[in-house]
């Protein structure tokens, strides 16, 4: 074989593998529904790739590579089921079940693939799995990440992630899940289990961007891709668009929120010209869609749509000084009804202080000062100190800043708080 032939064979294989990557998640989805086993579905998909690698260079890439791969994999699955069926025929019940399965497979050949992919997403993100297991499994079977990539992304080790995925697959198998997107009353609860995982993946990347690890921000992109897929496949679900809007707008700030020294830059200090305007536009469009579907209306408040609406207030402000604080305060009033939490209450107090003055903030923060979740929570005295400072009560402000500095574990933040304490005179 000459060098150029080797080169072109390598090119062909790369092209085939790239085509396979586009189809992989849908293949696994279709196959998993058939064999009710994600492991087996992954094997069958991999088998189909091997066959494609040997046949396509000879026959050329088929007109519909996805259908070719699916048919090839399903034929192999049927063969295997028939073979197994012969071997264990004596177990009447199982045999009958297998025959039924083989028939079902043949009739399902032409089923809508998009629907199957959604079924796989809902199954991989089933609430019977822990949130971490859901995240790892979704990244593996939908995102196509390797176990090693997932381990690096979650700052874990490969065996731990591999085991987490194996266990999750086993749990799904034992529960006999149907690999279908739920309908009716069950759908809303199951959907929030999916959205929760996508946002967990996103945050895992978003929070990590302060470090110098370049792998983790790609988690944001994985989550955004998942969110975009869900929006494509579920165009009528307000919260899907709420989550997508929230992620697009937050991701628009990725390059502005880390300083040259690797430290996080707060919203008020960010160079807004670095915000990604294409993502902001997409985020605002998705938010408009969520609102049109009832996501952020008075009755149908979804937590993601509300958080996206909050993020949008910042995205729309060209400068920090232009921020629409009364609107942010009003959105927090609604968010605390939908997702009550002391942290939301604290942010609400800050928003009210920005909108209506430090006394308004003080009044609200005093209401939550005794919450157990906020004990030893540095942002609470830090916010209180800020309100007192702005109200001219400098001695009290100083005490709060000093208390906050003692509570924080972040040296940079402690220095900042002590500087504020000093400024109180």
């Amino acid at each position, binding site marked *: 074989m000459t060098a150029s032939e080797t080169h072109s064979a390598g090119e062909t294989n790369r*092209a085939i593998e790239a*085509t396979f990557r586009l189809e992989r998640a849908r293949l696994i989805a279709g196959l998993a529904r058939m064999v009710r086993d994600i492991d087996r579905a992954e094997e069958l998909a991999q088998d189909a790739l091997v066959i494609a690698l040997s046949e396509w260079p000879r026959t050329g890439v088929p007109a519909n590579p996805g259908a070719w791969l699916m048919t090839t994999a399903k034929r192999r699955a049927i063969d295997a089921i028939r073979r197994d069926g012969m071997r264990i025929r004596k177990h009447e019940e199982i045999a009958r079940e297998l025959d039924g399965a083989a028939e079902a497979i043949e009739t399902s050949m032409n089923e809508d693939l*998009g629907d199957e992919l959604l079924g796989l997403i809902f199954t991989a993100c089933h609430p019977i799995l822990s949130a971490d297991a859901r995240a790892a499994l979704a990244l593996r079977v939908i995102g196509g990440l390797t176990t090693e990539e997932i381990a690096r992304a979650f700052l874990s080790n490969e065996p731990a992630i591999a085991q987490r995925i194996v266990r999750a697959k086993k749990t799904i198998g034992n529960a006999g899940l149907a690999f279908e997107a739920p309908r009716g009353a069950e759908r809303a609860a199951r959907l929030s289990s999916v959205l929760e995982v996508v946002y967990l993946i996103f945050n895992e990347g978003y929070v990590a961007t302060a470090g110098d690890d370049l792998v983790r921000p790609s988690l944001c992109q994985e989550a*955004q891709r998942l969110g*975009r897929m869900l*929006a494509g496949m579920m165009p009528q679900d307000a919260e899907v668009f709420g989550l997508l809007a929230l992620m697009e707008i937050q991701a628009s700030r990725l390059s502005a929120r880390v300083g040259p020294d690797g430290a996080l830059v707060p919203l008020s200090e960010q160079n807004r*010209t670095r915000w990604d*305007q*294409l993502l*902001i536009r997409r985020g605002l469009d998705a938010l408009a869609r969520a609102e049109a579907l009832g996501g952020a209306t008075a009755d149908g408040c979804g937590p993601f749509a509300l958080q996206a609406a909050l993020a949008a207030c910042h995205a729309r402000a060209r400068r920090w000084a232009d921020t629409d604080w009364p609107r942010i305060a009003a959105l927090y009033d609604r968010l605390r009804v939908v997702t009550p939490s002391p942290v939301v209450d604290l942010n609400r107090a800050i928003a009210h202080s920005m909108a209506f003055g430090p006394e308004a903030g003080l009044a609200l923060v005093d209401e939550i000062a005794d919450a157990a979740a906020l004990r030893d929570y540095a942002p609470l005295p830090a916010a209180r100190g800020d309100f007192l400072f702005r109200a001219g009560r400098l001695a009290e402000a100083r005490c709060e800043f000093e208390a906050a500095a003692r509570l924080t574990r972040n040296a940079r933040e402690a220095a900042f708080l002590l500087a504020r304490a000093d400024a109180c005179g």
Partner: protein
Amino acid sequence: MRVMVLVKATDESENGSSNRPEMFEAMGRFNEELVNAGVLLTADGLTPSSKGKRIAFEGASRTVIDGPFAETRELVAGFWIWEVKDMDEAVAWVRRCPNPMPGPSEIEIRPMATMDDFQEMLTPEAKDINDRINGKLGAA
């Protein structure tokens, strides 16, 4: 990575005869697939170059040239912006794009540059100006 995918012009797109209902349908299905895969960020088509203008630069001179322009194959008829993992993925997607034109045609994939690509060339002054421009563009 973010790529711009350019549909190059043909004689048909230039004389406005390239739009066929069945092509719109096939392209619509392809776009839907791109959306469902989470790949498509934005897309737009351009009018024929007969509606465009060119401005030629040389030293201090500026010469305005009215369209249409001759080198059809170098013109752009439309574009997408995609978010893909790598160029292989972008190529695999373009391979399955329906024919964008009735006759022979070409699609070109270009990775989009980020500010990091220009970092070394930018003086602090240039950065300031650039930031200012982006800030004005950013008025939503």
